[in-house]
Every structure is written in C-alpha cells, then in structure tokens.
C-alpha cells in the first residue's frame, strides 16, 4: 500500500484554483520534497493530505480518507505545519503531559532524551523560548511519535542556519528509517537537496516536474560553456541558460556527460538551478521540446507547457 495515493485531487477557493487535479503516489520510505513558488498550492496539497481541508477527487493516506478520519489518521501521521503553532501559553512539561495523554504512539522518554540535548527547560512556557528552541521542542515531540508519515510544511522558516542544519540532521539521524515517509515543503532548497529521495515541483496547482533524486542526478547536468562552443551547446536544446561572471551556464536534460564535457566544465545542478530553469517563463518552449525530443511521456511535457 502506498503511503499517499491521490487521483485528480482538486481544490478551489472561489474562482481561484489551488489544486488543479493532481495525481500523487508516494511510496513508503521516501522523503519527498515539494518545491514551488508562493501560492503554488503546496500547503493546500499538504492540508488535504492531513485532513485539514476538504477536496474533490480521490485521496487515501495510509489507506484512510483524511477528511472524514482525521483523528484516526493522526495516530499514524505527524506534522509540523509551521514554526509557530505550538500554543504560546503552554509549559514544556504540560505539553509533554498532554501529548503523552492523548497519543498512543508517543514515547515520552524519547522526547525527554531529545530535549536533554537542548537548553530547553521543562518549566519554561513556549512564549519564553526563542524561535529556534520552539522548533527544537516541536521536533522533539514529533520525533518521539512513532508515526508512519511525517509532513513538514516550511519547518525551518525563519530559523538561523545552525538550527536549520541541526533540524535536518536530527531528522535523518534520529528519526528517519525505511519504514517511514517524510514530505517536506521548503524554500530553502539547498538544505534539503541531499536529504530528499524524491523531488516534485508544483506551480499553479499542477505538478510541473516529478522525479527521484537518482533520476535527477542522472538526467540534469549543468555546463559552464566555453565561449567558442556556445553555438554548439545551444544546438543541444538546453533547458535554461544563464550568465555567470560573463560565462554562459546551460542546463541540460538528458544529454550525456561525455558529450557535454567537450563544451566546458560540467557540474551537477542544484535543485534551485533546475527550479529556476523550469519555472522561468522563457524556458518553457525549450523545456517542452527537450522532453519531446527525448521521447518523454507526453503527459509530463504537457504539464510543463500547460502550467505556463
């Protein structure tokens, strides 16, 4: 059974289409990053998965309908919706008492041991903690819950770089194993690049790109083209072209490493580079034609075109 199975998931707010019939299939043991511009529908998609919003279409999370079975589903699903959702009036000790009292899969000792590594005092109220400490506290609670799916919506927004690094390190070292699934949305894509197993770009309620990180690494290459090879490089249908220090950097989809090496310095693009390439308006035709040329499934190419 897939962790998440969605078919034609659609959500509108008045005349605004937040989710335009997306299909989603997330297997157990994956760490999926959903990347998209503000207002792309990321949070709406996650809210549907978490039973926080109604939707049209078919959606099963761990075999359950999230909208009608939220409380049952939450035994197996954890989420951090935002850095600042812990109630500000509550004491750390009360928070632990409460979660231990209502959650059948919460291991209090585990949460305490995570907290012992921080400077958070049990007697403090959440409002007395710094933003970074609140995030640590929330993460300590979530990691002590033996959930099968963890959803993180901008979990590190507004945190400094140390806390952000620590956040993902703890998640990978102390929490993630192959039996869990994690979905994360973030704007800080560099930080999750080495964390993810799967990548999804979403824009205006549609999935624009979907690939595993292995696929990402084998498909996309970036070349800092030597000026004399520029024309030859452009003839290979780059996804995107940008100028760095007066040199042209071209991003290719599915062009061989050996072939590109002759044109200039080849490197692995970052998710951010690919994101810019896929999302920039002028790259759309290139992108579609590139996919077509390589005989990509038409569906994906259409999605790229249609989303623009």
């Amino acid at each position, binding site marked *: 059974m897939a962790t998440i199975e969605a078919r034609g998931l659609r959500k509108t707010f008045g005349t605004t289409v937040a989710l335009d019939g997306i299909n989603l299939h997330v297997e157990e043991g994956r760490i999926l990053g959903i990347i998209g511009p503000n207002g792309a529908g990321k949070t709406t998609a996650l809210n549907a998965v978490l039973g926080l919003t109604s939707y049209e279409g078919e959606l099963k999370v761990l075999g359950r309908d999230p909208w009608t079975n939220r409380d049952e589903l939450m035994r197996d699903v954890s989420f951090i919706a935002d850095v600042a959702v812990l109630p500000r009036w509550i004491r750390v000790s009360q928070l632990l008492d409460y979660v231990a009292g209502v959650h*059948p899969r*919460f*291991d209090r000792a585990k949460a305490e041991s995570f907290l012992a590594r921080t400077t958070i005092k049990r007697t403090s109220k959440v409002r007395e903690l710094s933003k970074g400490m609140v995030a640590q506290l*929330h993460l300590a609670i979530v990691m002590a819950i033996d959930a099968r799916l963890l959803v993180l919506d901008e979990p590190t927004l507004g945190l400094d770089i140390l806390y952000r690094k620590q956040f993902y390190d703890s998640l990978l070292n102390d929490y993630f194993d192959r039996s869990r699934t994690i979905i994360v949305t973030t704007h800080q894509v560099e930080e999750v690049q080495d964390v993810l197993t799967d990548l999804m770009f979403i824009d205006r309620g549609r999935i624009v790109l979907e690939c595993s990180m292995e696929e990402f690494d084998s498909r996309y290459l970036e070349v800092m083209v030597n000026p004399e090879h520029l024309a030859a490089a452009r003839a290979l249908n780059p996804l995107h072209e940008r100028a760095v220090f007066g040199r042209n950097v071209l991003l290719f989809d599915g062009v061989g490493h050996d072939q590109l090496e002759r044109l200039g310095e080849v490197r692995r693009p970052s998710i951010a580079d690919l994101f810019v390439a896929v999302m920039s308006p002028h790259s759309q035709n290139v992108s579609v034609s590139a996919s077509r040329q390589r005989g990509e499934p038409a569906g994906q190419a259409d999605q790229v075109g249609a989303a623009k």
Partner: protein
Amino acid sequence: MNSSETMSESAGVSDPGYRSATPQPFYWSVRRELWENRSIYVAPIIVAIVVLFGFLVSTIGLPERRRAILLGDPAKARAAIEAPYDMAAIMLILTAFIVGVFYCLDALYGERRDRSILFWKSLPVSDRTTLLSKATIPLVILPLVIFSIVVATQLVMMLWTSLLLISHGMSPASTWEYVPLFRNSFILLYGLVAIALWHAPIYGWALLISGWARRATFLWAVVPFLAIGFFEKITFGTSHFASMMKDRLMGFAPKAFSFEMHSVASPKLTPGAYLSSPGLWLGLVVAVVFVAVAIRLRRYRGPL
C-alpha cells in the same frame, strides 16, 4: 501493545516500541483547558477575596449590632444574619456565568487566532472530543469550582464571625443556627446544576460563534439578539423576544425554586417543576444542536 521499554530506542512501524498507556483524550483535553484558562478558578477566587474583604470591613462593630438584632423579631434577625452569605453566593454564581460565557467565546476563536489549532489538529483528538471537553468547562467544571469556593468563603465568614463574637464574650450560636451551612451547600449545588443546564444553550451559542466568527466574537454573539429585540419592539410594539431572552437568563429561578411571598426562609426546592418545564428540555436540545454545529465548523476551520 505493551512491549518492553528497552525496545523503544529502535522504534519503527513494524516494531512498536512505545509504551502505550491507554490514551485519554477527553480527560487531558479538559486539563488542557484548565491550564490555558486559569481565569476559570482565578476570577472566582479574586471575587471571593473581594467579598471576604468587604465582609471583614462590615463586621466592624458586629457584636453590638448582633446584640441589638437578637433582641428583635427572630425572622428579621435571621434575614440580617443570612444576607451577606447569600450575597457572597450570588456574586460568585454571577462570576461563574460571566467567566463561562467569555471562556466559550474564546474557546474556538483563540486557537485559530494564535494558529495553535494546527498543532491541536496534528494530534489524534477528534473535533467532537475537543468540543465536548470545552463544553464541560461551563457545564461541569465551573459549577464545581464555584461550589467549592462559595462553601469555603462562607466557612471563612462564619469562622471569622464566631471568633469576633467569642472575643466579645458572646456565643457564636446565632450565626451557626441561622446559617445552616450544610443545608445551604445542598441548595447551592442544586441551584448550580439547575442554572448550568438552563444556560446550556447560551454556552452552546457562544461556542458556535467562537468557532465561526473571524473577529469580534462578543458582538456577533450579542448583537443579533439585540437587533431582533429592537426590531420587534419598533415594528410590532411588542417584546416577546426580549421576554424570551430574559426567561433564558433568569427563568431557572421560578422553575427550580419556590419562593414563599414575604418569607425569608430558605427557598423550597422544586426539582419536579424544574425537570418538567419544557424550557429546560427545549434549551438542552438547542444546546446540543449548537454544539453539533460547532463540531462541524471546527473541521472546516483553520487558522485566521
């Protein structure tokens, strides 16, 4: 479910190593409400302290007055001695009502305003459990809190009076005879239950508005009723609606008690009349509907 604690380190889905006491979402949700809303007991305690302070001041010269009172009509003596005790109880019951209404108006609004609803909804606690735990506060917890505070306040008042009288070489018996603490406590408990059930639709309405309004919950809760009342008065010159509202606020008294005219004796309890009054049951049905709508609303509501 109860696997050994040593396994908890390697917890995974296939090997549930958590220790699982049976979750008690309702119990912990009620406790949560008490953590968050300390006004539930702090406000009555403050009122009790003010009442006690006022009583303390009023007992200056009490022994002389007590002597004079006891020489007169016993009925009047009883009324005079009992009055401050009734006053204390009434003040505290009124406090409970105000605290209860404001608690309910904030119960579902506050969690949306501070976005903590996203945290509460991330836990396996249903909207129904949440709403029922919130409704428990004005219907069960507040009456119990008020009961204990009233009894404690009255006890302090009686002990203080007794000490004062004894120190002036008088017997405190008049106080203990005219203020039957045990019987009064029973009447108080009965009264508190009768009031809470009678007011249930008011609390239900406040919960509903609290889950629905995006701002100004108090105005949304009150203004429609004022508007309907004024509309009726201006258009038809009648005030049926206003008297309906008044009955909802105060109507428990004539149903649950029978006050003998010109008598200062404790009121008679009339549970039969109370339980058979359609107003009670109609109110309870309306309260259940309001709470059911509020449960439904919470499902659709996110942070403001």
